[in-house]
């Protein structure tokens, strides 16, 4: 690929870039200054994941927030949901979680949290970007500079809050054994404390919390091979993989079968919808499994653009019971306003404890669909052409243009869109039969390739 792709993405997922390239401390200082200005002088909570570059971003964020006269509650190494919880419980003006989340070690990012503890929605992101683009930053004089405070209480309060959200007594009574891959991330210490409080015996994997990644951090089956192998060699009730900043969860059965990350939302939904009113909100790329579960409970399944900011924003306006995406990010409302891997895991543990069934059984209950995904590196200039070529191919069908282009057929659906976080076009589809899925997938990849490089190749 000889196209110069800028390795920087700014949008509803925050500011994300390759460290040392687009992601410089100057960029971070500017964005944190914009955020401090946006928050208008109220307290801002910050936390960071364990990546080496996060300490650099952390220093840049602190300096910038202080310069705007913003008092900072610094949670240090800590998960995004813990930052979100601290923002809500302290009625802070906002929060910044410094984390490359599911991206590989080269990347890092700022996730901006609003006063409701949710990631900024599209409208608020736009306001923040206006301040950034105008460089209209508040500059406090020396007497009015912000102050940095640290506290250990915030993380204790966060753990207490998610313990409150589940039937801890029942979970405790089961004395579950869980293998957990912490990915050396920010959830390592919090997660151990939390699972200990749930009476679980934890077999830890990658729990050095030093930011070294034994595998890519996204909790997909490909990245859970180490965990799956561990489960085949030890006796445990299940395995859990937790993303570096504690937002996404992956699950492995006692037998060492890594479940697709798409399974987390429907497994949690089956348990939660029996106990709580409200619709489910997910994105346009997520498996139909959750739709089927919602239908069982007579609930609506609302689909939004891809990205936690979009999904949570809708979930909060719809008073949803549950929000989540197919990447393992799930928020069990009203206990959280952000995707929370530990809370999701606790909900799964609750489902297992209450039902007395294994994770493998719960997974087997889910309807079987066949999903295919492809990523095509692609300059922004080609995105339109790719989407148009799909509309042309399926011109008899009505496309949903909310986020890229999506087609919904009785036995299959197809979603093609530009990534929020990387210079890629993603093709995602799902069909009731594996053959249909393969056939559709082959055709879609061909369509996209041809369109990406224009007519007759590059």
């Amino acid at each position: 690929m000889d196209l110069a792709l800028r390795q920087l993405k700014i949008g509803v997922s925050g500011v994300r870039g390759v460290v040392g390239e687009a992601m410089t401390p100057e960029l971070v200082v500017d964005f944190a200054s914009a955020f401090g200005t946006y928050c208008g002088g109220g307290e801002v909570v910050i936390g960071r994941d364990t990546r080496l570059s996060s300490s650099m971003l952390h220093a840049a964020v602190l300096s910038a927030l202080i310069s705007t006269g913003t008092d900072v509650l610094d949670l240090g190494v800590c998960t995004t949901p813990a930052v979100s919880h601290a923002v809500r419980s302290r009625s802070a003006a906002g929060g910044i979680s410094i984390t490359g989340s599911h991206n590989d070690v080269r990347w890092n990012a700022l996730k901006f949290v609003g006063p409701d503890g949710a990631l900024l929605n599209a409208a608020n992101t736009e306001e923040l970007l206006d301040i950034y683009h105008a460089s209209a930053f508040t500059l406090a004089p020396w007497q009015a500079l912000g102050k940095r405070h640290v506290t250990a209480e915030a993380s204790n309060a966060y753990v207490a809050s998610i313990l409150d959200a589940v039937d801890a007594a029942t979970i405790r009574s089961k004395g579950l054994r869980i293998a957990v891959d912490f990915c050396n991330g920010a959830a390592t210490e919090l997660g151990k404390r939390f699972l200990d409080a749930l009476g679980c015996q934890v077999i830890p994997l990658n729990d050095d919390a030093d930011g070294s990644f034994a595998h890519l951090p996204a909790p997909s089956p490909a990245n859970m091979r180490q965990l799956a192998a561990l489960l085949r060699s030890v006796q445990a009730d299940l395995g859990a993989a937790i993303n570096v900043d504690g937002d996404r969860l992956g699950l492995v059965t006692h037998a060492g079968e890594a479940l697709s990350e798409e399974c987390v939302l429907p497994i949690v939904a089956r348990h939660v919808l029996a106990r709580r009113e409200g619709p489910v909100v997910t994105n346009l790329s997520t498996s139909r499994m959750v739709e089927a579960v919602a239908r069982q409970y007579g609930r609506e399944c609302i689909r939004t653009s891809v990205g936690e900011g979009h999904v949570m924003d809708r979930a909060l306006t719809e008073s949803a019971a549950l929000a989540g995406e197919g990447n393992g990010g799930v928020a069990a409302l009203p206990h959280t306003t952000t995707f929370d891997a530990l809370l999701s895991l606790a909900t799964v543990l609750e489902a297992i404890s209450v039902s007395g069934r294994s994770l493998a059984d719960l997974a087997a209950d889910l309807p079987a669909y066949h999903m295919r995904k492809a990523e095509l590196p692609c300059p922004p200039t080609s995105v339109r052409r790719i989407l148009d070529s799909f509309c042309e191919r399926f011109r008899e069908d009505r496309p949903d243009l909310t986020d890229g282009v999506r087609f919904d057929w009785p036995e299959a659906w197809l979603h093609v869109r530009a990534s929020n976080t990387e210079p890629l076009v993603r093709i995602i589809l799902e069909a009731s039969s594996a053959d249909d899925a393969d056939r559709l997938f082959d055709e879609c990849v061909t369509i996209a390739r041809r369109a990406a490089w224009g007519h007759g190749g590059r």
Partner: protein
Amino acid sequence: MAANLLRRKQLALKISISGVRGIVGDALTPQLVTSFAAAFGAYAGAGPILVGTDTRPSREMVEYAVIAGLQSVGCTPVDVGILPVPALQLHVRRMGAFGGICLTASHNPIEWNALKFFGPDGILLRPHEAAELTDLYHQGIYPRVGGAAVPQVRHDSSAIPRHLEAVRQALDVESIRRAGIRVAVDCCNGAASRATPTFLEGLGCKVVAIHTDPDRPFPHSPEPVPENMTDLGMAVRESGADVGFVQDADADRLAIADQNGIPLGEEVTVALAVRHATRRSPGPVVVNVSTSRMIDDVCSETGCTLYRTKVGEINVVEKMLEVGARIGGEGNGGVIAPHINPCRDSFVAMGYILEAMATERATIRDLRSAIPAYAMLKERMPARPRDVPVALRRLQAACVGATLDFTDGVKAIWPDRWLQARASNTEPIIRVIAEAPTEPEARDLVRMARDAMENQGESV
């Protein structure tokens, strides 16, 4: 009217051989500091860089920006905390760091902060080195490291004890201890708030220390000049101290009060130190061109050669190293003894003064009386850089009959008085200094200089 609307505001930033200096909440932004730190990291190379600070309330904001900038280019920030700038300078060399950055606007008021840059020898960047750094900053292209190679911050609290030990070793500690000198000291809630009482007690002094809380704002302007020494004067009188010391915020400069609490004037510090050092071991002396002629008297008394340089610590240090001087400094209270520490060091200054009192069994007033007294006036005139050459040429023309020296700005020397005007390294001003036998005569010189330079009008 249009001219009024277009009038430029007073700049709150100065980038010079003295470092990067600006007003917090104005030009000294985290953006600027981050980039300058990245430029310094690029200049120094990817190794350990010491980062220390004085006690200004803006220190956190500036320090985090420095750390992020250094990390981004692969330097390991070594946080040495709040410390006297001479302690940081000594530590850079001792631990083999690639360089150092001290966050201090020294004697500037509290709304200012600054970055001072040091090479691997712990010495301020030479003018040509500072020029290279500034070029790197202006080019704006820094060798950033990738996410997996970002170095982590280290902490080191050994700089202060090692510095105090180094100064102690250069002193006749036994004699000073035996003298049991009572010392009142004003640390200005600055970087030496912890170190100075420890140092003085270690020399057997009975110490009354005021303004030693680094978390409180400066109790007075941090410049160690007589008008900022009323608290010290009271402390001397109340405690019956034999001598009073006041340090500036970063503890490179020292001013002295006598046993009655009367300030001796900051020019006396280097004169006393030079006299003491050269009486014990004669040798060349280096001061800047703005320093009192008391130094000429001292050097005649002890038969030492005196060199004068452009103003700026680095210029004095460079000359000292070149001619092998063991004592020198600046009239602003900065004493330099390169064989101990090649920079202005208020601990060296205190040590020498106490050693002089102890070994000569003299009061501080006696020591002062051994050197002639002159009246010196220092004034500042706001001036844009573009206006400075014209102003200086006008002054030169007005100084009929004087010997002219162009080492730094214009210095006009008459048999019993002198007058100097030069652009400040740190602020957009012209500094005017006059020294004469009496204060009215010095005042006349300053007035003459002002009249000559202000005469240029607003036409530029």
